[in-house]
């Protein structure tokens, strides 16, 4: 797929996702993960084991920060900036500043390739999810994993609907934080 095609397709899916279209959003995240995997694998050649973890971390970060995207901006630039930010974080914690030289300030080639083969992530997000407090964990488990509605989850857990929504939102941010700390 040519670069500009990828931008167009992903942009379209993402914008529909931002409007609440779950199917389009899921397709977006799936395609995005293949691009991220190839992009990061090429730059993390020293640490092939880290690639899938970082793909997951980027996906979660992009989900948590999706409100910072404005549709007049090239999606490539937004995705690239977040992937780069997360990669620098990882490299900092891994190897200090020496590793920061070459691969980072590249062009915006994040959609140029794709890699569909996912190796297993080493870090288990499900395990980290279990370590969240109930007010975060239960809304995520019921709404995001079991697919219940917010209202059903509220009834099941005795939380208010707004507490469920806030719990999902804060819980996913807390999860991203746990991932950073586990790095």
């Amino acid at each position, binding site marked *: 797929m040519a670069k500009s095609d990828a931008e167009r397709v992903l942009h379209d899916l993402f914008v529909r996702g931002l409007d609440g279209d779950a199917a389009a959003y*899921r397709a977006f*995240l799936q395609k995005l993960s293949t691009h991220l995997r190839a992009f990061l694998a090429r730059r993390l050649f020293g640490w092939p084991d880290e690639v899938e973890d970082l793909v*997951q971390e980027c996906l979660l970060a992009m989900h948590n920060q999706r409100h*910072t995207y404005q549709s007049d901006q090239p999606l*490539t630039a937004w*995705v690239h900036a977040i992937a780069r930010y997360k990669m620098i974080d990882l490299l900092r914690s891994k190897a200090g500043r020496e590793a920061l030289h070459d691969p980072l300030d590249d062009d915006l080639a994040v959609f140029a390739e794709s890699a569909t083969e*996912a190796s297993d992530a080493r870090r288990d997000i499900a395990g980290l999810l279990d370590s969240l407090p109930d007010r975060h964990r239960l809304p995520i488990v019921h709404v995001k994993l079991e*697919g219940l*509605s917010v209202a059903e989850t509220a009834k099941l857990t005795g939380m208010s609907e707004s507490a469920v929504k806030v719990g999902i939102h804060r819980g996913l941010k807390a999860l991203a934080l746990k991932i950073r700390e586990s790095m």
Partner: protein
Amino acid sequence: MKTDDLVAMLATGVAPVPRRAASLRLSVALLVGVPLSFAWMLYEYGMRRDLVQAMFWPMFWVRLALPVCVAVTGFVIVQRLARPGVRVHKVWLGLAVPLLVIWVIALVILLSSPAEERPTLIMGQTWRTCAMNIATISLPVFVAALIALKGLAPTRPALAGAAAGAMAGGAGAAVYALHCVELAAPFIAIWYVAGILLPTLLGALIGPRILRW
């Protein structure tokens, strides 16, 4: 958890996301912060008594326009830095140009005044307190802006913190101008600028620590 499972999890039960979150949240920060700054100025320092009269002096408006320019530019820069992959471009000029203008005016006034008047033009009567007062008054906007930024995604946290500081410092200086009795351009060129720089530096220092995500 496999990546496909994570994707499924993230995509399940998504609600529509509000647009233009960066501008919106930073506007809210200003709407909350500036009235607090204003109230603090009224309570702690008081409005200058001859405010209506002062409004007829051009220098009063210059002194107000400089920090307002800085605050507005700071806002535009922060809301760009708060969004990944958005470049700031030439908006920096909005900070540089007002600074240059006030420095040129100050220099012209200093050079055209007799030597014995120059210290008064620079120090005024309140040079000891001016910068600190501005920094103090800007604090509510500063805190509100950093809270807003924490909910956004700055990939250059030091710059984002500095821009938030400049926005807060500009707003604080504009509010302080309603109290301050100094009207000499050299005084403003030094002490107002110092007052704006304090929160800017503070933002640059603490940005990398508190704005990581």
